[in-house]
């Protein structure tokens, strides 16, 4: 039987269920000290002086580090900008600790190290910083106005980047259009809000000058490489270990942060391990978010509602720094065409500095906003031309026979955006069948009779997943006979260990639970990229297969010598290699590994390679595109503006599935995140750029009573781009959720003519829209 494709129980679960998880804050390193961060209370200020005296006088305090105390070259080097882009006018990122200007409330200014966290926090309060408040940029649109306060004191304006993303003849598309419709859309997304906050333990060994960092990061190799560059030391002196258990990532843990370098610097300076664990308030202040996008768009269609072109502008709130460059708005703008044939497209992007924490990708990475925009346009076309929303989409979908389909866009690596495979019309048909869409208007009419407002909404999407360049896996049969797998890929709950174990198990004829998978350690696999962009299954998966196939060949070759048999006559199963049909005549993995690991003075026979291990780096030629369709039914309470999701149906195509149960789980979790974005989550700042939602009481993430049961169906269109045929599954649940939920709310309120152009669709927003609609009505 094959392990790949079956819903095997996760190897991760037993430890996590019995309190034996190993999260970063569970680590106790001997002699360890604890850190707390002193953060700017101002959104924008000059730092005139820092008095550490009182803090240092507190018993149990070991050091208070500020910019001045950091070692060179740390002090002067800003954190590296991960993905440079020529469109960026001012490629500015953080200093490890603020130099003389703080640019958002929450920026780290000092790092206090003490015997325990309680003392460190006491001392942090005693650090006396003299700030000179400066004018600040808060709203990203207001920040573009002439004469607006600047987010960085030495800049002439707040434009971080300003460039178009376009293809086709947009003027002709609009000149010949039967209809043109315009929308102004505000798309807000908050943060990742993994339940485990960020954290690090840094330990420096002064003898070998080796630094070990345990960090709950999605990208251990990236952190190592950045640290090496900033410190000017060899990568081999640094080991970054993402603990086996990381409590959720969702994007923000993919980046490096000020505190990572502070902790490393402190461990080096003090000669003792240092732990820093973020608290939830700090998470709201300093962990990267997605936040605000303002879209002004126009769509041109022919008389039948077929797309001719989309054009407009996108203003994106970058925050104060660009640690990940301008990747989020870039992805947003390139996602708009989605699953539709769109002959011409022109979007002007303006990325704006504000005095807020930086924005970087959160689950979906700018795509939910893009899907919201495109699907709003689809619904608008349907309404204006009096067509069913399903029908408008049917008329515009890229057809399966058009695959591979070149969209016309150029992706961020300069390659053309080419959808490799997928059947978008079929996906929508499956979703509407699952949702019983055909009978909905009847149900809706009945509900209205009873004074209830229910509505239905659709959302389709295409997502670039599995982007390269690679993610390595090494597989080894040890002399103990056990199978060990190491990968640079770092999981945060996705089940990478199980997924890789399934793939290796198939090749080596052992059970997944007999394979020990160690992820996320730069000491295990030399180079790596990281867990984001739904890329691990499509990158590490094929690497695991390649490496395991290589080990299998080595096993068979060595066994052939031991058994004096031809390789073709051998079989591998149950941890043994044996003569086909004669299972008793064979050797165990332990025996073969012992042989292949050699004996002093005895040469290996020809063809037998030393050891039974293999490392592989599968390199996909380009991204593979997953897709899906969601259908949502909601009820809106017109008195309170509350939205209840009654039914949620998804059709999802992520190619071949290694573990269907884990794929279901990814979609479910993704939908829940989308529900939060659609209805609740709003990271609010006031006019002084002071964050207003800094607890889970103020910033609402969905509870068990908010998230509906989700009915799922899968289509499996294997991608030709990797040998497993897999695509990414981590973000598809989130991407169309906002669009579909917003459409359902609008549909429920159609008797009032309410038009939804904002996310989140909060109760106050709904009531305000109802009021506005009623006012228009009474005027009309």
């Amino acid at each position: 039987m094959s392990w790949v494709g079956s819903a095997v129980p996760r190897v991760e679960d037993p430890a996590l269920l019995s309190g034996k998880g190993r999260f970063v804050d569970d680590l106790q390193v001997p002699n360890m000290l604890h850190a707390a961060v002193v953060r700017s209370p101002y959104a924008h200020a000059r730092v005139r002086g820092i008095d550490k005296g009182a803090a240092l006088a507190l018993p149990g305090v070991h050091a208070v580090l500020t910019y001045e105390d950091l070692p060179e070259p740390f002090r002067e080097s800003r954190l590296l900008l991960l993905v440079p882009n020529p469109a960026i006018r001012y490629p500015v990122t953080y200093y490890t600790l603020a130099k003389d200007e703080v640019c958002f409330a929450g920026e780290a200014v000092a790092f206090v190290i003490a015997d325990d966290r309680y003392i460190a926090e006491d001392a942090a309060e005693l650090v006396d910083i003299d700030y000179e408040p400066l004018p600040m940029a808060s709203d990203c649109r207001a920040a573009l106005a002439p004469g607006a306060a600047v987010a960085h004191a030495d800049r002439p304006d707040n434009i971080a980047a300003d460039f178009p993303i376009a293809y086709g003849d947009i003027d002709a598309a609009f000149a010949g259009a039967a209809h043109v419709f315009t929308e102004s859309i505000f798309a807000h997304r908050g943060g990742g809000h993994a339940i485990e906050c960020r954290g690090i333990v840094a330990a420096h060994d002064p003898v070998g000058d080796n630094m070990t960092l345990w960090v709950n990061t999605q990208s251990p190799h990236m952190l190592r490489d950045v640290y090496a560059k900033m410190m000017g030391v060899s990568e081999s002196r640094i080991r970054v270990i993402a603990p086996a258990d990381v409590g959720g990532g969702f994007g923000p843990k993919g980046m490096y942060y000020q505190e990572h370098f502070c902790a490393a610097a402190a461990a080096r300076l003090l000669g003792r391990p240092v732990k820093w664990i973020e608290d939830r308030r700090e998470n709201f202040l300093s962990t990267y978010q997605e936040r605000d996008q303002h879209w002004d768009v126009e769509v041109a269609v022919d008389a039948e509602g077929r797309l001719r072109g989309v054009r407009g502008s996108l203003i994106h709130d970058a925050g104060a720094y660009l640690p990940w460059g301008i990747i989020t708005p870039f992805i947003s703008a390139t996602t708009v065409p989605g699953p539709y044939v769109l002959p011409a497209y022109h979007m002007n992007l303006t990325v704006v500095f504000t005095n807020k924490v930086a924005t970087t990708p959160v689950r979906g990475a700018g795509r939910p906003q893009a899907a919201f925009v495109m699907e709003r346009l689809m619904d608008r076309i349907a309404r204006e031309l009096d067509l069913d929303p399903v029908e408008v989409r049917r008329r515009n979908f890229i057809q399966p026979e058009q695959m591979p389909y070149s969209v016309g866009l150029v992706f961020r690596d300069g390659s053309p955006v080419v959808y490799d495979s997928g059947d978008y019309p079929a996906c929508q048909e499956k979703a509407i069948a699952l949702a019983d869409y055909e009978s909905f208007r009847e149900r809706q009419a009945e509900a209205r009779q009873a004074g209830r407002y229910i509505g239905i909404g659709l959302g389709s999407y295409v997502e670039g997943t599995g982007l390269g360049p690679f993610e390595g896996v090494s597989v080894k049969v040890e002399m103990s006979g056990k199978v060990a797998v190491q990968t640079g890929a770092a999981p945060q709950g996705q089940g990478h260990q199980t997924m890789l174990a399934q793939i290796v198990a198939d090749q080596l004829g052992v059970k997944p639970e007999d394979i020990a998978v160690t992820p996320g350690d730069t000491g295990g696999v030399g180079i790596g990229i990281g867990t984001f962009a739904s890329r691990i299954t499509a990158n590490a998966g094929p690497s695991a297969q390649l490496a395991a196939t290589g080990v299998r060949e080595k096993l068979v070759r060595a066994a052939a010598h031991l058994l004096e048999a031809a390789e073709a006559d051998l079989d591998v199963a149950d941890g043994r290699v044996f003569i086909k049909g004669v299972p008793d005549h064979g050797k165990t993995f332990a025996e073969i590994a012992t042989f292949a690991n050699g004996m002093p003075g005895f040469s290996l026979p020809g063809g037998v390679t030393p050891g039974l291990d293999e490392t592989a780096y599968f390199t996909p030629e380009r991204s593979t595109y997953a897709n899906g369709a969601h259908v949502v039914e909601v009820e809106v309470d017109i008195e309170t503006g509350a939205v209840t999701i009654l039914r949620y149906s998804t059709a999802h195509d992520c190619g071949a599935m290694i573990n269907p149960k884990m794929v279901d789980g990814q979609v479910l979790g993704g939908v829940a995140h989308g529900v939060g974005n659609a209805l609740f989550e709003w990271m609010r700042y006031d006019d002084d750029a002071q964050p207003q939602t800094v607890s889970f009481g103020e910033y609402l993430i969905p509870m068990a009573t908010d998230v509906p049961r989700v009915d799922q169906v899968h289509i499996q269109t294997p991608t030709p781009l990797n040998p497993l045929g897999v695509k990414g599954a981590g973000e598809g649940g989130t991407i169309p959720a906002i669009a579909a939920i917003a459409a359902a709310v609008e549909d429920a309120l159609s008797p009032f003519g309410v038009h939804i152009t904002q996310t989140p669709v909060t109760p106050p927003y709904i009531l305000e829209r109802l009021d506005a609609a009623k006012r228009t009505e009474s005027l009309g």
Partner: protein
Amino acid sequence: MGERRDITLTVNGASVSRDVEVRWTLVDFLRHELELTGTHVGCEHGVCGACTVLIDGRSARSCLMLAVQADGHEVTTVEGLSPAEGLSPLQQAFVDNHGLQCGYCTPGILCTLTEFLETNPDPSEEEIRIALSGNLCRCTGYQGIVDAALAYARSNKGSAE
């Protein structure tokens, strides 16, 4: 160094006496002093439920309680809900129903459900969701958790009849 006090309490069935700082939260005491790291911290302001433990059998937020307040009481953490070998039936139901991904919320959820399912052995899905509404999970969308609770209740009912 803050004021200290001696406390004696029962943790997972064993009596524990310690000299603690009066300002220590119960969760910090459990995690850092007793090294029971199964109980997690997600917010420290009483909303996420990751720190949920059982105090005298009732679920409680160990981030909102001081260690000294647990003096004389009986505390059960996820470690105490786990058999020496293998998994409890409720834990197994989580494996079978994919009730966890990152597992960070899971210990708190197990504590909440342990109390809930004792008092409500035959709950509806809605009742389970309401019981879980004090435990945030960012990964699973809750469905696997709800299904695990339902499956556990159903199998208990089966064995009781």
